[in-house]
């Protein structure tokens, strides 16, 4: 009973956090399941993927309702990201992951600093950027997808800064659009884990239930959030993930 309640609580927290920031929420679920509940990492990741997909469904509709999803940016970026992730996860056995982790860690560190300095652009600038920089943005999303697929980092953490910095989209729209995309890239991974029989059917329901509830609340709150607060939170998440990637890579290398 206590364990089930803890799983539901973890799902609610991950949904709130992920829905608020436009991320998947795996950053909370995987450490909680492995460190606090003693679930094996090979079972925690598929459960986290299932939760990410339902979180996207719950949160993105809230952003969509408020007109904070740019569907014309979303489709090409989702396609680039999914293709990158396919390539990344299939190259898993041929590429030394330590170096990719270090590279991604440096990229995220640079992105975190740029994010703090970045500014929303006026609407006409955004429309111009969307036309002139779409290919570049897709290429970067594709590369981000490859690196994400190689080291198991979700799409949101790459996509939000990309849309904010390259297109000048408002952070709210970037988060709403990202929240939509992570559902699709997560579904591709979930499908594989599920058809391979790797989803733990005892742990998954309470975590998914919590995420469905938390994601809706996170999306509602996120659509009303102050951009400056979101920027600081995203900066903290980027720095944290960058640090974790670097520390794991250095531990393996040294």
């Amino acid at each position, binding site marked *: 009973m206590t364990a089930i309640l803890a799983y539901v609580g973890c799902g609610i927290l991950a949904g709130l956090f992920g829905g608020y920031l436009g991320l998947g929420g795996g950053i909370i679920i995987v450490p909680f399941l492995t460190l606090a509940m003693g679930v094996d990492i090979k079972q925690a990741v598929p459960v986290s993927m299932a939760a990410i997909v339902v979180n996207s*469904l719950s949160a993105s509709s809230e952003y969509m309702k408020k007109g904070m999803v740019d569907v014309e940016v979303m489709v090409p970026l989702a396609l680039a990201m999914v293709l990158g992730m396919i390539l990344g996860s*299939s190259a898993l056995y041929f590429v030394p992951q330590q170096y990719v982790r270090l590279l991604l860690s440096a990229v995220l560190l640079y992105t975190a600093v740029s994010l703090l300095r970045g500014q929303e652009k006026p609407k006409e600038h955004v429309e111009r950027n969307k036309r002139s920089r779409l290919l570049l943005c897709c290429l970067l999303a594709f590369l981000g997808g490859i690196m994400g697929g190689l080291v198991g980092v979700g799409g949101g953490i790459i996509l939000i800064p990309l849309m904010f910095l390259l297109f000048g989209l408002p952070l709210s729209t970037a988060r709403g659009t990202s929240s939509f995309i992570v559902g699709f890239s997560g579904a591709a991974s979930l*499908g594989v884990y599920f058809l391979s029989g790797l989803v733990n059917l005892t742990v998954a329901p309470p975590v998914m239930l919590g995420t469905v*509830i938390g994601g809706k609340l996170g999306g509602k709150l996120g659509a009303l959030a102050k951009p400056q607060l979101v920027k600081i939170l995203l900066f903290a998440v980027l720095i944290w993930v960058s640090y974790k990637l670097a520390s794991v890579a250095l531990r393996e290398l040294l």
Partner: protein
Amino acid sequence: MSGRQIRLMALVAFDHWSWLFFIVWFAAATVLTLIGSSVGGTVTYWGIVIVLVNNVMRLFLLAAYFKSERKPPYFRLTLLLIFALVASILFQLWIRKQS
């Protein structure tokens, strides 16, 4: 409300009803797991199948939106995304079986 907004609202409405459905479905799965019923696993299994199908249906709704808005490049990209999602699942399954 413009025609564009109404068509996007169809997607929002679909997401809203899906959300309610998933709350009930996974609450039932959680309760069944909690009482140790063997049906719990089956309910969760079909819940995940519905989640995956739901994602594809969202993309079809988006494709319908682009078609009605007469935006053929985006319509085709959305269909390509559906194809990429399904193909990626099958491709990665094949890789797993090989390794």
